């Protein structure tokens, strides 16, 4: 049942990719901003978790209690202090400023932590597996990550469609001027959206740190995975993004099984194929 295990692994890592994507598409939905530094912020979260671990000695999953608010605060300050100034009709400023930010974060991390590969130890849980059927095994940690990803996406959907904050997000995204007439300070609304995005990034970053070796340069690849998951799944639909992440994860897993050098290529090729044949994605929201 080699292939069965391969597919299971692909599905589970798809959850992580969906979390990479969720923060990205949240921001795009609320303020039409694509954060090129998104992947680097995930790596930044991983390093923050590393520092928390080194300072307090707590295990990674518990450290989320600290890492998440830290990243959320960074997100709020970043949006309020810098990114709010780039919003407007022109495409260039947000793109180039977040690109500059990406370079700054990567090189800042390089200066502080060197290019050495790191990993966050989670203990015995890293290698535990449980059996679901004859010859089919699921890793406990990947399973937890997938479950958390599903919970995060469900929570985001719920927040968007059932809470006043979510209403504020949707209204501000529709019509900034009229949103102000409702008493909403749009600068604050955008900053809250970015804070939320970074909170999700924090969770994704900690999971990344536990799962694989990380160094300052791996940010762009995470951005690309998140982006591919969004496009495959279809814009405007969080559950579609989960599906997109899963498809990407499975493609990569199958590619890796054929030849280790083909892991990333397989994912990119599936992405390009979907872009060619169904550019709106597999499950796009009708109104977009």
């Amino acid at each position, binding site marked *: 049942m080699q292939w069965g295990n391969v597919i299971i692994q692909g599905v589970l890592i798809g959850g992580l990719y969906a979390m990479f994507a969720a923060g990205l598409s949240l921001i795009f939905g609320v303020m039409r901003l694509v954060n*090129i530094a998104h992947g680097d912020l995930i790596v930044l979260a991983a390093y923050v978790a590393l520092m928390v671990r080194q300072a307090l000695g707590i295990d990674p999953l518990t450290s989320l209690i600290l890492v998440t608010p830290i990243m959320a605060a960074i997100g709020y300050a970043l949006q309020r202090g810098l990114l709010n100034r780039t919003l407007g009709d022109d495409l260039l400023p947000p*793109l180039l400023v977040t690109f*500059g930010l990406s370079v700054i974060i990567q*090189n800042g991390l390089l200066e502080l932590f060197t290019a050495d590969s790191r990993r966050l130890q989670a203990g015995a849980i890293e290698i535990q597996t449980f059996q679901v059927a004859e010859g089919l095994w699921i890793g406990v940690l990947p399973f937890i990550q997938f479950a958390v990803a599903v919970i995060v996406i469900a929570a985001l959907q719920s927040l968007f469609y059932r809470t006043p904050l979510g209403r504020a997000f949707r209204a501000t995204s529709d019509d900034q001027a009229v949103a102000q007439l409702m008493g909403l300070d749009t600068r604050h609304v955008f900053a809250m959206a970015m804070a939320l995005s970074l909170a999700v990034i924090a969770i994704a970053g900690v999971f990344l740190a536990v799962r694989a070796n990380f160094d300052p340069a791996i940010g762009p690849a995470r951005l690309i995975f998140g*982006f591919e998951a969004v496009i495959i799944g279809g814009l405007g639909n969080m559950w579609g993004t989960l599906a997109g992440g899963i498809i990407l994860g499975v493609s990569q897993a199958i590619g890796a099984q054929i030849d280790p050098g083909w892991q990333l290529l397989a994912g990119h090729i599936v992405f*390009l194929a979907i872009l060619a044949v169904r550019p709106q994605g597999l499950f796009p929201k009708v109104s977009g």
Partner: protein
Amino acid sequence: MSRVQHATRSSQIGVALIAVALVVLALAPFWAERSTLRLLAEIFTFVALASLWNLLAGYAGLVSVGQQAFVGLGGYFLFALVVLLDVHPVAAIFLAGPVGALVAIPVAALVFRLRGAYFAIGTWVVAEVFRLLASQVSVLGGGSGISLPAGAVIAMAASRQMREFEIYWLALALTALVLAAMVVLLRSRHGLALTAIRDNELAAQSNGIDVWRIKFVVYVLTAFGTTMIGALIFLTKLRISPETAFSVNDWTAFVIFITVIGGIGRIEGPIIGTIVFFVLRQALADLGSFYMLMMGAVAIVVMLWAPKGLWGLIAERFGWQALPLQRHLLLVPKDSGARS
């Protein structure tokens, strides 16, 4: 009766200065040191790359963070022709252009399905695909890369000095060609359309300009130029690997910073930006990643507070133009003689 005049007083001075500079630079092998020649050649290639990126982003509104795809394509194409087919390196450079354009056609068909920042990331994905494919080609060194065989190096010129002169002149010639082609394009009817798109895409479209087609053509032409420059770059380096060929830092980040700091959407911008970039590089040479960090910060500051870049500030303050690209409509009265 009327005609369109492109030149202004400052642009007449600018053209004269550029002509003088070209002569001086062409003669550089006779007055400059080896290291200066190499530096100049590097400056030329960055001016060319940045100008091409500027055409794409500043005029056509297509922000690509994946032009390294074509730089690497040019490099690998040159190495493929030289190593596998024994083609003369200089010939390979000129063949690289059309190949780059051909490859750009299906790439454009794909990435044009994305808009705005998603388009940008899409171009990045394409570059990644090229990089991964290059790693799989074992005859060209696979993941670790390959050096240019000695035979090909000798084929260029017998002595190392002559080879370096050749490369220098090639760099100067290609860069001059790229800039000249841009000026010709921008002075033409298509250039007017392009400038209209730069200023206000929606308005341009409602005025009947086929925006999609123009963007497509500009993308393909830019790929043509970028691929040739890429071939030249790796001929100079004498060695290629997937990492260096498709490096985002070297071929996109620097290029973007140069263009942003110099001034997007103006042809003089990349020239000014490259000069500033290299001055900074000489000054901050030993600072490694801190240097990159600074560049990123400067680019952000410029983007927010001086979005038209250094040249934009100068041009607006003084109304200058280095190249004759404006359009003044001169009305010639019917009865009297011509008066400007």
